[in-house]
């Protein structure tokens, strides 16, 4: 069976500067794949390009279809979801409206049951459902961003630094939910600086440096790799201890 998402020889450039060079990756069904790497390695750029926010040279196929001519909105409708680093919530609208809009392309009747599912995953959002998104704490905003993306019934959810700037206990919660997603049939492409935590829950992993993948393989093998351990795992303790 072919992969759910396959990226072949992707290049992404900001003007003349190539931020991502010759990158290929695959995400299978029911799989958590992580891309780890230092700040500025090009991870966010790559996710944005897969989503169609930035132009990409190369081939991206999702569920067997070439995405080249599809807008962001079409990719969302196909089942590709992105939770961006800055979350991009509708801050002056309440939690429930944010979630409802996440299901903009979904049938109304199905959206109703989706919202209950999201509330089961994130009970905190249910408590705050009438509160404005802009007044939520960082962790709650991350939950809302994930919840909104899940409302669109994605087959693949791409998460960009979901743990950034959050308290360890919330990070643990978010990573637990990511593994739950896999059980419910959603694949996850996870971009993280918190390599230790990411490698623990992922099936496959890629290590990105200066716009290129320098290592790839099973997450457990990558975690055991000496070079990775020295560069990424040695000093990244926050969040890891509680998982």
């Amino acid at each position, binding site marked *: 069976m072919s992969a759910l998402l396959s990226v072949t020889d992707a290049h992404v450039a900001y003007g003349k500067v190539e931020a991502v060079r010759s990158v290929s990756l695959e995400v299978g069904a029911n799989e958590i794949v992580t891309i780890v790497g230092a700040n500025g390695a090009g991870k966010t750029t790559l996710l944005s390009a897969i*989503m169609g*926010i930035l132009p990409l040279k190369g081939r991206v196929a999702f569920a067997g279809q070439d995405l080249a*001519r599809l*807008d*962001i*909105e079409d990719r*969302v*409708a196909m089942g590709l*979801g*992105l939770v*961006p680093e800055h*979350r*991009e*919530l*509708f*801050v*002056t*609208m309440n939690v429930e*409206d944010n979630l*409802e*809009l*996440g299901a*903009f*392309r979904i049938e*109304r009747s199905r959206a109703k049951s989706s919202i209950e599912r999201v509330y089961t995953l994130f009970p905190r959002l249910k408590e705050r459902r009438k509160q404005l998104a802009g007044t939520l704490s960082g962790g709650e905003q991350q939950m809302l961003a994930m919840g*909104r*993306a899940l*409302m*669109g019934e994605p087959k693949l959810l791409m998460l960009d630094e979901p743990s950034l700037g959050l308290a360890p206990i919330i990070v643990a919660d978010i990573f637990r939910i990511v593994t739950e997603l896999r059980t419910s049939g959603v694949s996850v492409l996870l971009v993280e600086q918190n390599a230790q935590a990411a490698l623990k829950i992922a099936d496959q992993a890629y290590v990105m440096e200066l716009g290129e993948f320098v290592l790839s393989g099973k997450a457990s093998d990558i975690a055991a790799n000496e070079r990775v351990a020295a560069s990424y795992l040695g000093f990244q303790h926050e969040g890891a201890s509680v998982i």
Partner: protein
Amino acid sequence: MNTTIMLFLVQDGITNGAIYALLGLALVLVFAVTRVILIPQGEFVTYGALTYASLAAGQMPGTAKLALALGIGAFAFDLFVARKALHGRLVVRSFITNIVLPSIVLALTIYFAAQKPPVAVCIALSLVIVAMIGVYLYRIAFQPLAHTSVLVLLIASVGVHLALQGLGLLFFGAEGQRGPAVLSGAFTAGALRFTGQSITVYAITIAFIVGLWLFFGLTLYGKALRATAVNRLGARLAGIRTTLSGQIAFLLASVIGALSGIMIVPITTLYYDSGFLIGLKGFVAAIIGGLVSYPLTAVAALVVGIVEAFSSFYASNYKEVIVFMLLIPVLLLRSLAAPAVEEEKD
């Protein structure tokens, strides 16, 4: 000052202010969703008014033909953009909305214009014609520029305004027109006399404001429009097309403009270029509302209307000057409140 005169002036000001409020709300809406400062809002007013007046007088309005011409343009744009991935459904849908619909409306207009139709038919046709012009204009002039800066959009907006004004002269001539009252009759309450027309203005304004409030607060499309205004990327990631939001915003703005025109034209003689000044007063209100706040815009519009009424009584030569001078303290205050120039974000 005589209380009766004062009451008259306030009443007059509120009637005008109600119309400026509608126009101001439309400007805020369009700006929030598409970042376009809608200078041609005034042309929607004149097109609505003069189409209505022409139809009521049994003349064929050129705007119906313009709608078809713009529809053909919009269809061509749709085909061009989708040229690499053309599929039947898209072509059929675009053909129906951009060509079949304005053709039917044009046929109806030709049919009805020949026989002095009833007021309701004139209103309906005028609204549909101007609404189509608004939506097609968005497709042709603004949608291809959606990713550019506010300045580029403003330049396009000025261009559209000038083009529409020129076409207005061609369609309606240099002479002014008046239309029949939507509601005739009048009654008095104390010293004040309320005409059917002014009651219509109040009722429609209130109905529209309540309607917009319900639309934005309760419906999915209304919320999607707000979401696009709050966070464009967030909206796209939720699968909301910015082009769809833009179309809805322009549809609402053109309907509001045309409706305002239809409400004014029985009270005041309108010329092909009168819309600009009327739209500008809505713009003053929108600026006072910071181009973001709907309630502030509505209140400011009433103030603009009342100031205009009083200044036309006391210093009629300067009435426009006085109204536009309202902007100076507001801009001054705003610049003091936010001293740093914000970089334009996209």
